[in-house]
């Protein structure tokens, strides 16, 4: 990758500081001629007005609603006050207090445990699939396409078909009965939680597979050859040479997958309906039910903000490891 110094890290921070200090392109003290030329070009003709359409729209439809959500969480907004919500009573943190007394902690626990279990359980499937399709063989393209099926199917379709298959008289119980197992109820009662996890695993493992496959493909050919020359058997080679290359990308994938599991509204909602059984009442569904079935908008806004704070923990971890400027990385 060419080294245009304008975008490497130290320079960028430096220039960001200059720009924060005052307008006008103050000439940085030590610069190569090439850098100077590039800087001149990028700073003189910055078409920042091009940000206006996108920026204005994002402010209007994202920033303002998010600020409004914080305000709603502090007022007593329900179906009676909705029509004149600007006049609704300001009640401070009462909604938050009530949220913690009306099942939010339970929902948080369900959400987090469901997300973590689903993520951990999908890793072996995803990594095994990536390892199995890394080497070329006849029909590999078909196998790869098959692996993508659960991922490509929309969530609502996955949830609908599993809901149908898991009915008390559905195909799952029919097949289980043939081998002498009584399936019982999958969509209500104590088993519902594990049903949710199983369906989520079925739908989500290809994400880990894709990320692991991308990482495997970036392993240098010489690594394989070196371990072949050393006469490494497949198992030591896999565990000691290849899998360490996957650790970083797969951890990143896990972080993202956990975020996606926590935010998954469609699967529990379509699978169990609303209100769902208590054991699968995850954060998105409890917020939905509180707002659009109990019509307690203020209370549900407080719940939604608490869940955002919970999500912020893995999110910040992700933002930390994510490179926002990848000029120095080249490639993509």
């Amino acid at each position, binding site marked *: 990758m*060419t080294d245009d110094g304008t975008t490497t890290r130290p320079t*960028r921070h430096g220039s*960001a500081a200059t*720009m924060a200090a005052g307008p006008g392109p103050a000439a940085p003290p030590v610069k190569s001629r090439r850098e100077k030329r*590039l800087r001149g070009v990028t700073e003189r*003709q910055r078409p920042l007005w*091009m940000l206006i359409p*996108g920026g204005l729209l994002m402010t209007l*439809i994202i920033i*303002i*609603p*998010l600020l*409004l*959500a914080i305000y*709603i969480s502090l007022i007593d907004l329900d179906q009676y006050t*909705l029509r004149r*919500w600007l006049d609704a009573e300001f009640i401070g943190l009462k909604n938050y207090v009530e949220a913690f007394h009306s099942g939010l902690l339970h929902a948080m626990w369900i959400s987090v445990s469901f997300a973590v279990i689903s993520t951990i359980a999908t890793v072996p499937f995803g990594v095994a699939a990536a390892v*199995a*399709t890394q*080497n*070329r063989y006849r029909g590999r393209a078909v196998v790869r396409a098959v692996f*993508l*099926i659960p991922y490509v199917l*929309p969530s*609502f*379709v996955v*949830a*609908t*078909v599993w809901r*149908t298959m898991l*009915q008390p*008289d559905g*195909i799952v119980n029919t097949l289980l009965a043939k081998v002498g197992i009584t399936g019982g109820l999958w969509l209500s009662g104590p088993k519902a939680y594990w049903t949710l996890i199983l369906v989520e695993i079925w739908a989500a493992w290809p994400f880990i597979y*894709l990320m692991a496959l991308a990482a495997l493909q970036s392993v240098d*050919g010489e690594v*394989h050859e070196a371990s072949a020359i050393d006469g490494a058997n*497949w198992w030591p*080679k896999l565990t000691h040479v*290849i899998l360490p290359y996957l650790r970083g990308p797969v951890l990143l994938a896990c972080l*993202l997958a956990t*975020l996606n599991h*926590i*935010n998954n*509204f469609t699967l529990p909602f*379509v699978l169990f309906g609303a209100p769902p059984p208590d054991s699968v009442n995850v954060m*998105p569904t409890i*917020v*939905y039910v509180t707002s659009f079935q109990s019509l307690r*908008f203020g209370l*549900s806004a407080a719940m*939604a903000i608490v*869940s955002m704070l919970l999500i912020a923990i893995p*999110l910040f971890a*992700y933002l930390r490891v994510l490179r*926002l*400027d*990848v000029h120095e990385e*080249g*490639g*993509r």
Partner: protein
Amino acid sequence: MAATATAPPVAAVRRGSRTAALEAHRLLPRPLLVIVTVILCAMVLIPTAYILLASLNTDLGVAEGQFWPSTFSVASYTKIWTTANLATGLLNSIVIAGFTAVASALLGTVTAYVLVRYKFFGRLTILRGLVGLQSVPGTLMLLPVFVLFSSAGNYLGVTVVGTRWGLFIAYLTFALPFSTWVMVTYLRGLPRELEEAGRVDGASSVRILFRIIIPLSLPAIVVSGIFAFLLGWNDVLFAYVLTRPESQTAAVALSIFSATQEGGALPVYSQVMAAALVTAAPVVLLYLIFQRYLVGGLTAGGVK
């Protein structure tokens, strides 16, 4: 890929070294490879096959618990158009998701170009925001959007809730940051030299964007549009709250149709499966056509 790159030119040697290289690259012994592949394929294909078979079965056959239909028929595929609100749903989904795709891909490209190529105060904050916004729970966005939309009716006398364009705006809240981020990841890999030539010729930034950047990044723009389309197509949350029967999307039509079947005298599960496959078809088709680009974009863009 890597195996052929290192092969020497002499044919006989190439053959030998290629098989050796392939052998060296082998990760799993053959029996294990077969076992793993078969297990994973079965896990995916058995439910998928059942969905397909059930949709080709009769409603009675599915209710009796047949895995393999005793009689094949496509009756379910013809019946669903009258039993479910599917045609309206599909049309609405195509219109709403389509507009979302076009709007967010175009706006996203312009915004991403400025974010990638020019430095200005607050740029990193915006980039972080773009990533962070993709993890904001839909329920958190839906509430204020719903309150704003319904108060547009009360305070301004404009009906937004229940209209297609209301849902379109709601989808932009997710699609726009997402498309922008996909374009950011693509554009920053585009060599700067490509624009330098244009600059030397004295072309304006707008001209460079439309004459150089956009033609060069057309595949990525299409991908970011498709992702935006999928966000709209796959959404259930916003569509449930912000639509009326006439503006219902396919996702809502399907889940209402399937939910009303349970507990009835003869649930039409075969039709449910057929309807599910029909609503999934456009998405599957998009993936089949753009598979290579989409899979690359998935790993680059990160969030689904």
